[in-house]
């Protein structure tokens, strides 16, 4: 039996893990991988204490500092399959069917790329539908590409594609919302075509994706652009499917927490980081929230000895 099980390996989870170990709490940390979504950043330039650090290096630093702690058990390469209450304890089942029990659980498994949920998106994932432009833009060499989403992530994807694709179609629901610095950059390029006030209706092709269908907002008339790659950059969604029955979620499906303590609606379960309904999703603040959660868990467990 553990005092605390931490679910996740991003900034919130690592902040929590380091503090829990230093409080000598018997702690288990379960994660698929370290770093969370910060890994996707080519360069992090606002992490306080570092002028500039790559996402990959940041993940390595987090893992290294966690592993320096003595009193923490770490399982990597697993995901969570179930979280159930067992009397005063909580039981966690992982993807290898191992079960663990603890007096407290901290949920910090973050968020993932939001999907459009249109026909063809799942079928062509990796076969023309992509979510990591930094990774997969080079595969668009001498090909036509589309980017869906007009925020910073969408505009960054266009910039990532510039050296490779012959034609880039940017499809946005409203107007461009990304930073002016990116907008200026892409408007200079003749091969970038911006389609405003449109909604993507489906992806089509044969073995690989070949066409992105869309229509003007408020119209049913479908048009298409030819593209061998479509990069979906429409934001993040929290990984909360597993907790729909046990924890109170917000309308946007984030875990509702008390921002002073990071406690969820269920006694014995805390949450921190991008998975919560807290405002402003930042690496710096996520670390702080993970720590805040652990200090509150420590206090709570001390009281209930």
């Amino acid at each position, binding site marked *: 039996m553990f005092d605390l099980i931490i679910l996740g390996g991003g900034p919130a989870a690592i902040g929590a893990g380091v503090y829990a170990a230093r409080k000598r709490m018997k702690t288990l940390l379960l994660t698929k991988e370290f*770093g969370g979504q910060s890994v996707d950043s080519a360069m992090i330039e606002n992490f306080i204490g570092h002028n500039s650090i790559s996402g990959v290096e940041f993940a390595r630093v987090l893992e290294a500092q966690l592993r320096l702690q003595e009193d923490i058990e770490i399982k990597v*390469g697993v995901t969570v399959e179930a979280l159930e209450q067992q009397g005063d304890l909580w039981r966690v089942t992982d*993807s290898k069917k191992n079960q663990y029990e603890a007096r407290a659980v901290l949920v910090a498994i973050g968020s993932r790329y939001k999907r459009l949920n249109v026909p063809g998106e799942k079928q062509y994932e*990796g076969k023309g539908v*992509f979510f990591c432009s930094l*990774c997969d833009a*080079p595969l668009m060499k001498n090909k036509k590409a589309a980017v869906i989403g007009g925020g910073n992530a969408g505009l960054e994807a266009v910039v990532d594609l510039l050296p490779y694709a012959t034609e880039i179609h940017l499809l946005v629901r409203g107007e461009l919302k990304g930073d002016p610095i990116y907008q200026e950059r892409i408007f200079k390029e003749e091969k970038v075509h911006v389609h405003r006030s449109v909604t993507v209706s489906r992806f089509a092709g044969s073995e690989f994706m070949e066409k992105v269908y869309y229509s003007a907002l408020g119209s049913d008339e479908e048009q298409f652009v030819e593209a061998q790659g479509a990069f979906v950059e429409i934001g993040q969604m929290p990984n909360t499917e597993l907790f729909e029955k046990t924890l109170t979620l917000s309308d946007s499906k984030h875990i509702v927490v008390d921002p002073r303590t990071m406690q969820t609606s269920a006694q014995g379960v805390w949450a921190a980081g991008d998975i919560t309904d807290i405002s402003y999703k930042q690496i710096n603040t996520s670390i702080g929230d993970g720590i805040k959660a652990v200090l509150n868990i420590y206090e709570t467990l001390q009281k209930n000895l």
Partner: protein
Amino acid sequence: MVTIYSTTHCPYCKMAKDYFTQHNVEYKDINVEQDDAAAADMIKKSGQMGVPVIDIDGTIIVGFDRGSIDEILHLQ
């Protein structure tokens, strides 16, 4: 024999390569950004275009899936 198909700036490719190095696993790195034939080869092997693709003695892993890598190479 471990082969990784990667692109230059792909963070998960770098994480996978670092992971192999850390565990003394020898690997061959093929940058598909610079080698069109290798890119075609990777797409044929994996049935998709995303990187990284990792080939461990013929078993194909798409993405840096540490759980699967650990299992096949008996790491950890």
